[in-house]
């Protein structure tokens, strides 16, 4: 007996938000205990349902078990554990220093939940990118609606099932669907919207948010460049690039190494090393390897094919290039010196294609990167200390990683987010808690000790005293009070 799919229209969207708002106003989500309970349940999901999650990811993306276990479940497990351990600290107010002008007073900054928030997730790491922000939302005490991506349908269905089964439905809900459901959700008034996806849709989200003055976090993408200096450990460099590119959802990740910049002189060595390691990792027939995700769907397959087929690009393939549309597979492909204005060098690749652009000297890489929209990540492989410093200081990106790829994702002590086209806001660790909180300033003043200088009628003397107070210079204040100034 087929269950009728519940209709989700404008009325349902509005009812949903109203219901969650009532729960929030009733204080359901504010208490420490409620938040801890939800976080513990999320941990149980990670512990007890890993197998189903791995299966769903295999269905949706052909993701290898290790990637699912590590880059989705393990990261989430750690995120839950961290929140469980730190929540008391995070929730505690911060004391703030008061000055002579506000003396006597004490001040603090109190973290309070924003209210009812919307998390819109992506298809490439459907569990990680759904639950990690939800962990942030819940730890900060909000009610939350999650809209997973319909492009990963098995994951979306499993998320809906698990969250419904384990979490408090009066405050945490999942809405499945496509652009229609998303649009209906975006018409509602939210207290925060957290979106992971493309820059194009990021604009749509922010425009919708503007109608209600809803603050947003946009985790977008971009072309994350990898600069490779000849002065590096070639084998380690190449292994990390390969693992970071094809070993992370087959290049379909927001921080995927998009293209390489290196010198003309070094490129042949680099390419040879890459070919060698690629074979070590994926064998002589990479299309048969079970250690890479497939392309998510035929739309993206066709998009990537088009990138390869462009004139002046197709003849630059130096490795790979095989495609299998039926099985949605494209072999790890390396291209050498495609034109800088080609399609493959203009949009985020998000797939297993890796252009290598050669330069006369490594200096030029700064100009190349600078002339493009700011990416989510920028990578550099080198032993050269000066180059590392210059890169870190002058390349603007969400995050910079030297001598590795993508690992900064796993570090809860570093904020993860973009800048410019790659996004706004950040999360992970305490930054997630902060992203979903309002930091309310609280000033406690005493009713004693009032300076008449504050009030009309105004006079010269009052002006002098005010000036001295502003200087917060105790001598000046005394001088004025004693009539010596």
């Amino acid at each position: 007996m087929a269950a009728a799919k519940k209709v989700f229209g404008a009325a349902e969207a509005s009812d949903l938000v109203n219901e969650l708002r009532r729960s929030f106003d009733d204080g359901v989500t504010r208490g420490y205990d409620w938040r801890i309970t939800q976080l513990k349940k999320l941990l149980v999901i990670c512990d007890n349902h890993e197998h189903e999650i791995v299966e769903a990811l295999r269905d949706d993306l052909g993701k290898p078990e290790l990637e699912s276990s590590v880059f989705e479940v393990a990261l989430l497990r750690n995120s839950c554990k961290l929140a469980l351990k730190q929540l008391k600290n995070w929730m505690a107010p911060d004391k703030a220093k008061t000055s002579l002008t506000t003396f006597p007073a004490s001040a603090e900054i109190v973290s309070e939940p924003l209210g009812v928030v919307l998390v819109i997730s992506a298809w490439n790491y459907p569990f990680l990118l759904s639950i990690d922000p939800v962990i942030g939302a819940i730890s900060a005490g909000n009610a939350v609606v999650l809209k997973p991506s319909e492009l990963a349908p098995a994951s979306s269905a499993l998320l809906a099932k698990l969250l419904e089964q384990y979490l408090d439905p009066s405050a945490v809900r999942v809405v499945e669907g496509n652009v229609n459901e998303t649009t209906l959700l975006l018409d509602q008034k939210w207290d925060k919207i957290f979106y992971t996806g493309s820059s194009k849709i990021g604009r749509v989200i922010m425009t919708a948010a503007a109608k209600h003055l809803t603050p947003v976090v946009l985790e977008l993408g971009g072309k994350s460049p990898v600069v490779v200096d000849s002065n590096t450990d070639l084998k380690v460099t190449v292994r990390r690039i390969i693992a970071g590119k094809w070993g992370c959802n087959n290049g379909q990740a927001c921080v995927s190494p998009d293209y390489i910049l290196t010198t003309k002189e070094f490129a042949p060595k680099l390419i040879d090393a890459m070919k060698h390691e690629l074979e070590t990792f994926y064998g002589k027939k990479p299309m048969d390897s079970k250690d890479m995700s497939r392309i998510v769907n035929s739309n993206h397959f066709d998009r990537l094919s088009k990138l390869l087929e462009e004139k002046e690009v197709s003849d630059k393939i130096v490795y790979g290039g095989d495609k299998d549309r039926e099985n949605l597979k494209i072999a790890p492909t390396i291209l050498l010196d495609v034109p800088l204005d080609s399609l493959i060098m203009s949009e985020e690749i998000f797939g297993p294609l890796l252009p290598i652009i050669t330069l006369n000297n490594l200096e030029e890489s700064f100009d190349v990167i600078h002339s493009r929209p700011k990416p989510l990540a920028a990578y550099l492989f080198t032993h050269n200390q000066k180059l590392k410093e210059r890169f870190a200081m002058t390349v603007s990106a969400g995050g910079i990683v030297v001598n590795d790829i993508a690992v900064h994702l796993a570090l809860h002590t570093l904020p993860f987010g973009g800048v410019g086209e790659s996004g706004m806001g950040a999360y992970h660790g305490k930054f997630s808690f902060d992203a979903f909180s309002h930091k309310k300033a609280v000033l406690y003043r005493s009713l004693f000790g009032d300076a008449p200088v504050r009030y009309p009628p105004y006079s010269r003397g009052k002006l002098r005293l005010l000036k001295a107070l502003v200087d917060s210079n105790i001598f000046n204040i005394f001088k004025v009070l004693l009539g010596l100034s």
Partner: protein
Amino acid sequence: MEAMKETVEESLREMRDTFASGRTRSLKWRKRQIAAIYEMVKDNEDKLCSVLFQDLGKHSTEAFRDELGHVLRSATVAINCLDKWAVPKQSNLPLLFFPAKGKVISEPYGTVLVLSSWNFPISLSLDPLIGAIAAGNTVLLKSSELSPNASAFLAKTIPAYLDNKAIKVIEGGPDVATILLQHQWDKIFFTGSPKIGRIIMAAAAQHLTPVTLELGGKCPTIVDYPTISKNIKSVVKRITGGKWGSCSGQACISVDYVLIEKSFASSLIDMLKPLIRSFFGDNPKESGCLSRIVSKQHVQRLSRLLNDPRVQASIVYGGSIDEENLYVEPTILLDPPLDSEIMNEEIFGPILPIITVRDIQDSIGIIKSKAKPLAIYAFTNDENLKTRILSETSSGSVTFNDVMIQYMCDALPFGGVGESGIGRYHGKYSFDCFSHEKAIMEGSLAMDLEARYPPWNSFKLSFIRLAFSEAYFKLLLLMLGLKRST
């Protein structure tokens, strides 16, 4: 307009080139510019007081207290603290990643736009400017056309003191703002109304430009009479000074309305009346201590709020309006209907509704029924009430037993939530407001773990699982072959 479009494009080009040159990254340059702002204000105190008097009828003491003094202090704090603020923050990384290092550096966004307001035209222009410069950006300031003399002063004087290839001023109204908003900025900082805030954010969305919106709202003031009756004189002074003594109620953090238990309302009113007279004399229009309403349109707006017959009937003090002289008398209302216009939009003027409640606890419900304001004020010594206010209401800030003064505390973030705004500034928050927090991680090429790389097998899976859960001992056993891979 064509000429204006070209000016904007030219300015943008120049500011972007200046930013690209790296000049603004130098801390010395930033401090020099901020010091120049300090000098500019100090050198021109009299002129500044004069323009503020021309635009808003502000007394020089009010001008200094609310604007000039604030800017001087802001500049001093920025110069003294910039070195500290600009230091990268080291991050502790888990043992698994040893010997990797992590830190966060604050980098300027690039070329930013500051859109200022008319009520505190000097401080609301220069304070964000100080933040933008401290963070190392190039910046274009558009001052408000509703305070033309202040705007003209800034447009003429800033170029004389500051690096005018990096910091520019443009004058004009909505048409200029529209042109500016068509361009891509790296950050937009806006002070003004929620209505315009929405327009700004929608325009910013086209370019994925992050925004800080300092908006407004109806800032309520709870007076829990019985618990503060011993100090009622201070309370009344603070409310009176806060409401009418600062730009005649035209401030985003102005006391908008008072909430008090019914039985104490008349005592409060009986104390407010003589105090208003003592502050502003029998003819406040002539006192020189009360700011003017900024424009005829705003006088008409306030007039309209009072014209509602039910509101008229609630006037217990004041109520007279002189549109020609941009004057609205300090006015007190007692219980205008909660559904009247004056109780549903930000008043931004010298009219003070007093709303009575049966029990002071009921004031929380009233506050919650309205949009989140920029500030909530509460005069009370009841710890229970304080706790309820903090946990059940939401606002940019809460100040107990005073009004307005949170603005001067630069250790506190100043900003709104919901309808009252997005983002915050003041003190270090200004520096952060105009900075991108960039994470930097450096791994070591020396230590490499086989388990990181395909082809995958159960050993590698176990290894990584254990590593992630930081079960280092079990990891060691696995590596020594003393633990089975699962």
